[in-house]
């Protein structure tokens, strides 16, 4: 999808040379996922997030850690309160009014998710606890159904531990092999080198769409095309893409696509696994329990079709409703407006941080989401994090659950500023000012 998207110039002089800006803005054109009627106004967005009025150590909170978990707008909090206060019951099968109301709201959440990523049908949307569970579900079920010793899974050097460890577990269980698609020193994904790893034993490609640690946008549509040319299905970890990019799973032709609610300004405890209908229905169940069965006798169970086959037990009902509200909210802002706003912040942060003496930005891929990882001479990432925290600035420090990637880059830890819909240039300035104290203390 990124290849198809024309690039925009944000503000002349603030786009880093060579920086390709994702997203598109076509005034007047109505597109799915864009219900915005107003120009993007970051202060209006900020007013929707109650937590942003908090102070930290007497300073206004500057929250630059949305890649770990995003804050929640009032609209999500209200939708969840409203569900508990006016329309709560267990979902499905109930004949009473509350059960019907709550089931409708829950299933509306599924419809909204389907719309958000342009799935062909809401039956292709499986609710999970989070993206990690979605990835584990595919590893477990796909592995059981289709893999044996010596078969191969291709991942990339950019993966979060959540898309490495499930394959390690499968390796222990079945004896499969992992192949790692490489990156260059700037963090660019290397397509041809990836393609060379696809072989007769490759059963699945499992790959991130956007690196959580360094922001690289993987050319996932091309990855999928090259894998499909060899008959290999692709599972995409979209955890970091879903908040930033317009996702169209049909255009990408993704077989499976995973993301999580709490990174798209929704609640924790709810994640999403999209799967093509025929792919999902070819998999055995993940867990056994209520709701996922067609019939049960003491001798055997028969299972429902997707998505319910994979949703044993009472689901995260109100969280699904909250996720639906988050999606409504993002679409009211306009997906392309969001992409343009975040591209502007990314370009500005890249420029401003690049001016800080002794600071090196880690990850200079040609296409990046609004995530900037960096290290500083003389100061470890943790010391940076502690120091800027005292100025009210929240950044994440450490290995970002991507230790193999950091090893590849010759590092053990970075500081990471990640930007979302509510971040401003003034907040970038606050980070840069706070980093002055790092230099002051560590020299």
């Amino acid at each position, binding site marked *: 999808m990124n290849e198809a998207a024309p690039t925009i110039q944000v503000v002349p002089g603030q786009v880093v040379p060579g920086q390709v800006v994702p997203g598109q803005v076509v005034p007047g054109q109505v597109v799915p996922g864009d219900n915005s009627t107003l120009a993007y106004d970051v202060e209006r967005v900020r007013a929707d997030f109650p937590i942003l009025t908090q102070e930290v150590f007497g300073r206004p909170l500057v929250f630059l850690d949305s890649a770990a978990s995003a804050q929640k707008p009032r609209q999500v909090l209200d939708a969840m309160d409203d569900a508990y206060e006016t329309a709560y019951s267990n979902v499905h099968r109930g004949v009473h009014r509350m059960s019907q109301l709550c089931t409708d709201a829950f299933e509306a959440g599924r419809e909204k998710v389907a719309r958000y990523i342009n799935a062909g049908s809401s039956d292709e949307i499986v609710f999970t606890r989070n993206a990690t569970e979605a990835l584990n579900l595919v590893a477990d079920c796909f592995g059981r159904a289709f893999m044996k010793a010596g078969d191969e899974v291709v991942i990339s050097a950019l993966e979060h531990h959540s898309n490495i460890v499930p394959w390690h577990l499968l390796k222990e269980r079945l004896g499969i092999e992992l192949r790692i698609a490489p990156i260059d020193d700037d963090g660019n994904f290397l397509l041809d080198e990836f393609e060379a790893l696809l072989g007769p034993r490759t059963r699945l490609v499992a790959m991130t769409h956007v690196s959580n640690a360094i922001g690289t946008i993987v050319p996932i549509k091309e990855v999928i095309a090259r894998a499909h040319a060899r008959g290999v299905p692709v599972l995409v970890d979209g955890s970091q893409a879903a908040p930033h990019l317009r996702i169209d799973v049909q255009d990408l032709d993704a077989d499976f696509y995973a993301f999580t609610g709490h990174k798209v300004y929704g609640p924790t405890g709810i994640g999403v696994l999209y799967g093509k209908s025929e792919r999902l229905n070819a998999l055995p169940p993940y867990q056994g329990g209520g709701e996922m069965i067609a019939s049960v006798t003491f001798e055997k169970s028969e299972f429902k079709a997707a998505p319910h086959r994979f949703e044993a037990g009472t689901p995260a009902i109100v969280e699904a409703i909250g996720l639906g509200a988050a999606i409504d909210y993002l679409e009211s802002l306009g997906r392309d407006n969001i992409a343009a706003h975040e591209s502007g912040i990314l370009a500005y942060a890249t420029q401003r941080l690049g001016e800080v003496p002794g600071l090196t930005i880690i990850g200079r891929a040609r296409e990046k989401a609004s995530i900037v990882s960096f290290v500083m001479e003389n100061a470890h*990432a943790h010391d940076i994090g502690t120091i800027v925290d005292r100025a009210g600035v929240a950044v994440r420090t450490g290995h970002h659950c991507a230790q193999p990637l950091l090893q590849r880059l010759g590092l053990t*830890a970075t500081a990471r500023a990640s930007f979302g819909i509510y971040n401003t240039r003034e907040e970038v300035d606050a980070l840069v000012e706070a980093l002055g104290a790092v230099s002051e*203390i560590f020299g």
Partner: protein
Amino acid sequence: MLDELRELYQEVILDHGRNPRNHRRPEDANRHARGNNPICGDTLVVYLDVGDDGVIRDAAFEGQGCAISIASASMMTDVLKGKTEAQARALFEKFHDLCTKDDFDLDAVDNGAGDDDLERLQVLAGVRAFPMRVKCATLAWHTMTAAMSGEDATSTE
């Protein structure tokens, strides 16, 4: 803001962080353990050379980490030399209190050994105001006790 941070990052700590003492792998170490702080990925290896009489003849470490964890490992390896295992463990107990208890009173401590050492280590007490960083200060000590107990690896978790 800077005052509190200066309390944490005192000159002594910055010096030990930049130029850690005993940052090496001794040839004749007979105990060692790897310590891992999974929160940040910092890893230290602590080496001890313990004599038949239970006295620590040499202590050293290798690894990378934040200023606090490196300074703590550097200072710990300095003070451990000449201590018995029992004294080292007792010192860690007091050091742990020093790093975590707001009402810790150095003058009230009577552990029979290491009062001067505790006074030296007091510069690390600044982590008390930074609870997320206590594990940085104690990583080397946890690793040291693991090495004495004959464990290969430990974790602050």
